[in-house]
C-alpha cells in the first residue's frame, strides 16, 4: 500500500493478534482440557510475512499465547531459532509455483529438521504457503507429522469442530471432541 501509494482509511491487521485479543477478553473461551491426558505435542511455524516482515516478535508472542491456550503450555515446543529469527519453510516468494521442486524440497530440509528436533507430533501453520510446503516436507522426508491450521485447533478446543472440518488432523485427533458426529460424510 505504501509502495504504491494506494489511498485507504483502514488499518491492515493480522488475525493472530485478534485471536489473542479475543481470548484475553474472554470472548473466545478456549481451554486445553481436551489435551490434558492426551498430551499431544505441538510446534508452530512463524510465517515470515507476518512475523519478520510485518509485525515482529509481538505478534509471534500473540501466536504462542493462542497456541498455549488451546493445546496447553506444557504441550507446546518451540523450534530453534524462532520468531523473527525463524527460517523460511521454502513455500514463500512463489517458490511453490516456480517449477523448481527438487530445489524447493532441498531448501525445506532445514525446516523439516527443525521440526523433527522439537519431537512435536504436530506442526501448526497459519499461513497457506507454509501449510502446503511443510505438509509436503513432512511426507517427502518421511516423518509424516500432520500440519494443521490454527483455526482447526481453536474450534477443536471450543468443542465446535465437526467431523468434516478435520482434513488435516491426524488419526489421533479425528475422533476427539467431535461436534455433531452424526453429520460425518
Amino acid at each position, binding site marked *: 500500500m505504501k509502495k504504491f501509494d494506494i489511498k485507504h482509511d483502514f488499518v491492515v491487521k493480522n488475525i493472530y493478534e485478534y485471536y489473542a485479543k479475543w481470548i484475553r477478553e474472554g470472548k473466545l473461551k478456549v481451554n486445553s482440557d481436551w489435551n490434558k491426558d492426551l498430551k499431544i505435542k505441538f510446534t508452530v511455524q512463524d510465517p515470515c510475512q507476518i512475523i519478520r516482515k510485518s509485525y515482529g516478535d509481538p505478534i509471534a508472542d500473540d501466536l504462542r499465547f493462542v497456541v498455549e491456550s488451546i493445546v496447553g503450555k506444557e504441550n507446546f515446543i518451540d523450534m530453534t531459532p524462532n520468531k523473527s529469527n525463524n527460517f523460511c519453510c521454502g513455500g514463500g*516468494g512463489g517458490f511453490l509455483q516456480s517449477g*523448481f521442486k527438487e530445489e524447493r524440497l532441498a531448501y525445506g530440509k532445514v525446516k523439516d529438521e527443525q521440526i523433527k528436533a522439537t519431537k512435536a507430533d504436530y506442526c501448526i501453520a497459519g499461513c497457506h504457503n507454509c501449510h502446503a510446503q511443510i505438509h509436503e516436507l513432512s511426507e517427502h522426508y518421511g516423518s509424516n507429522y500432520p500440519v494443521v491450521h490454527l*483455526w482447526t485447533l481453536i474450534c477443536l478446543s471450543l468443542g465446535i469442530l465437526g467431523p468434516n472440518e478435520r482434513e488435516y488432523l491426524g488419526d489421533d485427533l479425528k475422533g476427539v471432541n467431535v461436534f455433531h458426529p452424526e453429520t460425518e460424510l
Partner: protein
Amino acid sequence: MAEAAIKIGGERKSIFKDKVMKLLPDGGNLNACLTCGACASGCPATGLSDMDPRKFLRMAALGMDEEILSSNWIWMCTMCQRCVYVCPMKINIPQLIFNARASWPRETRPKGILGSCDAALANESGSAMGTPVDDFKFVVEDVLEEYREAQPEFADMQAPIDKEGAEFVLNQNSREPVTEPDELIPLWKILHEVGADWTYTSKGWGGENYCMFLGDNDSWKHLAKQSADAATKVKCKTFLNTE
C-alpha cells in the same frame, strides 16, 4: 576442494546494482557489505544453483550482471528477509532479487508463477486459481446454508459479502473455496463466537498475490488496489489478513 576463481573483466560495470540502489531508501545499503557471511550461513537457499546471498551481492558489486540476472537462483530465494534481519548493515538483498526477477522478460519467468498471476488478473476476484466472483459467492452461500442446517447451534452464523460498514474486511486464500470448502467453516465459527462484524468483498477477495512474486509491479499494484478499493467502498475500518 576450492573451486576455480571467478574471473572478472577489468572494467567495472555494475549497472544493475546501481539501478536498484536508486529505487531503494538509502540505496538498500547495497554498498555497505562487510562480507561477514551472516546472510549466507543462515539462508536455507545457500548452495542451491551454486549460489548464496553473499555471493549474489558480491557478484552484483563486481558488476557481474549477466551472471546474476541469468541465474535461476532468483526464483529459489523466497525473499523471506532473514538475511536482512541478521545483517549488521541491514543490506536489502531481497530487493536486489525482486528487481532481478522484474528484469526478466515477462514471458520467460517461471510458468507457474506467471500463470497464477495471469489467472488473478483475468477476473475481479484477484484469485490465483482464477475463480470468478460468482463462483466464490455461490460456494460461500452454499456451504453456509449447509452448516446452518447441519449444526443448529450455528443457525445464525453469517458469511457476508460486501456488507457495508462492517468492522472487518477479510481476505480469503482461494484454496478453501475452490478445493476444500469445509475448511472455511472453523474461521467463520470463531468470528461468530466472538460476535465479530465482518465481511468479504466480492472484488479482490483473493488473499494471494502471485504478481508480486512474479516481479510484476503493475499487476501487483492492480491486485492490491482492487482489494483496497473494495474494502474502502464498504467503509472498512480494519482489513484483516486471515493467514
